[in-house]
């Protein structure tokens, strides 16, 4: 069985055999069809993400439902899921079945971190290491990603180090997400953004709670789509 999370920036595949994850693969989203080459004849496919309806014969569900199912398997006692994706951030309170999305402002999405990384000619995965060397994180007050970038440039112009500015951006980014998160003891971070240790640390500090990041957080929704498909839940 195959679970596919065809997200806005990255496409992820998981294969489960006898209840265990056998294989994971990931490509940039414009190349998501390459993942279909890994599907064996007759294999069932469940999809989620922006391109979920593009795969013939697959069972498609939204990322929100996929995240719930993925987390049920990985962190059964989770209360809140924070899914930091490329184009939006989704927060679900599993206690009340309510969810909020930040998709009108890129300051709380993975796209924001990419802007920062691109400016410094770094990979997003390098940002946490750079931020860890900060001595005095820069203060970035703007709530708009574009203006935050302007502030960042101004800080650099004023003599702030790259590390201080990147750390400041992490803090600003984490604050935007924290505004969406309800108070809870067991908060789980998933999505590509959860792979950024600097962000996880900042968010944890702001929320004053230890955040749980499952192994392979970017693959949770792909796994969840497949879990949903194999469940006996009423299908949409």
């Amino acid at each position: 069985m195959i679970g596919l999370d065809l997200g806005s920036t990255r496409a992820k595949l998981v294969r489960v055999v006898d209840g265990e994850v056998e294989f994971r693969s990931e490509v940039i989203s414009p190349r998501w069809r390459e993942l279909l080459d890994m599907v064996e004849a007759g294999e069932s496919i469940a999809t989620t993400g922006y391109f979920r309806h593009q795969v013939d014969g697959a069972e498609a569900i939204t990322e929100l439902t996929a995240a719930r199912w993925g987390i049920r398997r990985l962190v059964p006692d989770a209360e809140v899921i924070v899914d930091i994706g490329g184009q939006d951030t989704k927060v679900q309170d599993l206690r009340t079945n309510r969810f909020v999305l930040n998709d009108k402002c890129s300051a709380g999405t993975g796209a924001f971190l990419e802007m920062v990384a691109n400016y410094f000619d770094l990979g997003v995965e390098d940002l946490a290491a750079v931020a860890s060397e900060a001595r005095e994180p820069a203060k970035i007050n703007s709530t708009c990603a574009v203006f935050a970038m302007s502030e960042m440039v101004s800080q650099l112009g004023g003599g702030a180090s790259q590390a201080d500015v990147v750390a400041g951006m992490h803090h600003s980014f984490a604050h935007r997400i924290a505004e969406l998160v309800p108070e809870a003891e067991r908060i789980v971070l998933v999505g590509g953004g959860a792979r950024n240790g600097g962000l996880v640390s900042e968010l944890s500090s702001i929320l004053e709670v230890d955040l749980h990041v499952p192994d392979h957080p970017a693959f949770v929704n792909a796994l969840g789509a497949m879990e949903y498909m194999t469940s006996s839940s009423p299908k949409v």
Partner: protein
Amino acid sequence: MVPPELVFGCGHTPHDLNNHVPTSECVPRAKLCAWTATWRDMLLRGELRVDRLVVVAGGDCHNALVDGQRVAHSGIPTHYFFYPFDGNEGEMRDHLVSLEAFLGGITDQAALDGVADIKDLCIQLDMARCRRQVLGSRVFNHLIQLCDLGGDPERFGASVKRALEDRPSDVPDIRIGLVGVPPIYPDFHEVCESFGMQVVFDELPWEFARMGGRTLTTMARNYAGYTFARDLEYRFDALERELGRRRVDGIVHYTQYACHHVLEDDMLRERLDLPMLTVQGDLPRICPEQERLRLEAFAELLRGGGP
């Protein structure tokens, strides 16, 4: 809402400017809420023409008070219509009398009665969707027009009767209530239906149907109960009753960017013990992909798609 029976009764044809907004391509300047700013700019640019303007300036939409004055400065005779916050029927009657005077007095009681008859039919139509006898989108498209009856009560009434007689082949089984101002997306109800959700309650259009009357006294009594203009407890009590009566599975709270009603979202969530999705629109356009995602996820949730 400007009482349409009074406008027809005074020998005029009402024309609800809001009904032009969802399909408008006008991009308003200096806007807060796109609903009012769009009709304001359409009037100022001559894309819509009216002889007189009546603005609901109190107890309903706060932005309309300013946008209406902007139009008034362009020279269009304008009247400001107010709803009393405390539901005082005497005060409501005074506002109706003032509006009647602006419109030149009641000259056609038959026209006024005709609107009341059509509203009675619309109440039947509104309840028929709760029995899955008509699609929610079709009901909404009628009720939302009760502000002006498309300018032609006879034709509008015939359309309501057809909607009551027709039986759709398939009606979605998830029942949702749509609370707040009407969506600025013209296809919102159809999108809900595409995800298996039947809108069985539209808050404001429901008000349009149930308020009315054949005399100034009965109109004053009914319009004084306009819940959108009253204190929140009064409105929430009414919502609780109506949502319960219609046995909704969940609520979609539609909010409009820069509208003061956005502030009510948390209070609604605290008060109404039902799954609730909040959607916020801005400019008129077909329902954007992000909102479709929310609606699809909400449908999955209501259908039991959660572990």
